[in-house]
């Protein structure tokens, strides 16, 4: 039970909020008591009503996460092994990278409308860069001695890439992907809010605008748990993939 002190704090905070709202320290109109939110939450969960919006958001996160990771790994690897590719793409990458990707959602809406294409593109964009930069660093950091071992045994570039460079860069790539997973959630929720048709982001904003605060908080809790789950699953997969690093 290594989480137990942390869980105790969590319970205390929720308990305090319940008390504070009850005692009138926090306006009920802004924050319904947690128990009331819990009731709504239970209703959403037990009726299965939570599932369609959750899946809709999850679809954006996954599609963008995999597309962005694939682009980031491919481009980062190419730039890492080929100086020509690096010189070709580095200015473009350095130009787009610093832009907060949330600011690109409005222009993307012009081109792609408000459908999934726009939302997946914005998630893809935010995922690509951390993965790309980490891949680049990882690929460049592969030990010279190891690369020479491949050369002296007559390994070709393709074999070396697949069986040496990418596995050796994997710790970096996965670290970049872990950062990107969090950002993917942010952009998925944000683009749902800006181009609302459904999904968790849309619902949270919609409930706020219609003063259904218990619903709003309930959806927020669902979003939080989703983020927690995704991150935990990723960490687990990462630790399995990098078993050879734990020494």
């Amino acid at each position, binding site marked *: 039970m290594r989480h137990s002190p942390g869980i105790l704090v969590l319970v205390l905070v929720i308990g305090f909020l319940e008390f504070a709202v009850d005692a009138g320290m926090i306006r009920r109109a802004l924050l319904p008591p947690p128990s009331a939110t819990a009731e709504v939450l239970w209703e959403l969960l037990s009726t299965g009503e939570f599932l369609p919006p959750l899946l809709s958001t999850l679809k954006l996160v996954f599609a963008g996460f995999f597309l962005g990771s694939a682009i980031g790994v491919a481009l980062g690897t190419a730039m890492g092994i080929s100086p020509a590719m690096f010189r070709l793409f580095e200015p473009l990458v350095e130009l787009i990278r610093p832009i907060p990707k949330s600011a690109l959602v409005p222009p993307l809406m012009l081109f792609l409308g408000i459908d999934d294409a726009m939302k997946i593109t914005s998630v893809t964009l935010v995922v690509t860069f951390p993965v790309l930069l980490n891949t680049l660093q990882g690929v460049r950091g592969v*030990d010279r*001695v190891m690369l020479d*071992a491949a050369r*002296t045994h007559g*390994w*070709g570039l393709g074999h070396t890439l697949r069986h*040496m460079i990418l596995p050796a860069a994997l710790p970096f790539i996965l670290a970049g992907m872990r950062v990107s997973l969090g950002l993917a959630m942010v952009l998925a929720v944000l683009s749902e809010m800006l181009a609302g048709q459904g999904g968790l982001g849309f619902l949270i904003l919609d409930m706020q605008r219609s003063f259904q605060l218990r619903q709003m908080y309930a959806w927020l809790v669902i979003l939080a748990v989703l983020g927690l789950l995704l991150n935990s699953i990723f960490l687990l997969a990462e630790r399995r993939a990098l078993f050879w690093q734990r020494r």
Partner: protein
Amino acid sequence: MAFLGLDALGKFYPQPGGAAPARIMQGISLEVPEGEFLAVLGPSGCGKSTLLQMVAGLATPSEGEARINGRAVAGPPPEAVYLFQQYNRSLLPWRNCRDNVAFATEHRLGRKPARAAADEHLASVGLAGFGDHYPWQLSGGMQQRVAIARALAAEPALLLMDEPFSAVDALTRIQLQSLILDIWARRRLTVMLVTHDVEEAIFLADRIAVLTPRPSTIGEVIEVGLPRPRDAIATREAPRFLELRHHLLNRLLARDAA
């Protein structure tokens, strides 16, 4: 024609600002007949590893050339395998020992046949039953044995060894030296070993080429002339061994002048 020929090999690095290029070595010429065990002995920093890398096609000479079987070396030659000093950096940590040995041939034979042969190579370096272990689960000496098994799996005609035993403890070093002699005798390999360890050079080699400090060149070539098979203890006590040791240490420590 010698199996391995070095013809006036030299290496220098251009310096910034139009200064004269830094000469690491020059005029290295040697003929190595097939089956010989040659040691190249020199102090640290004399460019021994660079010399070996030029023979292995891992570094490009600034002048001269290395030839194997009459062909100039340009890129890693199929006959030669380089055994690195840093076994912990040349083995793949995400692969178990079997797959690390399969490394040598999998790109030519395919993964399955390469794997199937790997256990036998592991056994030949005394690591039978360690196929499923990962390198980081083994001691330094055992890791270097894996690297040796990998080199052998490639079935090279020429084994290039870069101070392969300098990172292991003294006792392990003696065991690995005997192992290498064993393998060399059984497989009729040609070996070029670079080392700064005088006793290692004498114990292992047929001939020893002594490098001078930078810019390095070959100061002298000595016939070891100790009988084979050599014994880890008795050979080191032979009068000829001690005589060579005295001579070479004198040279490396530059006591001639004193």
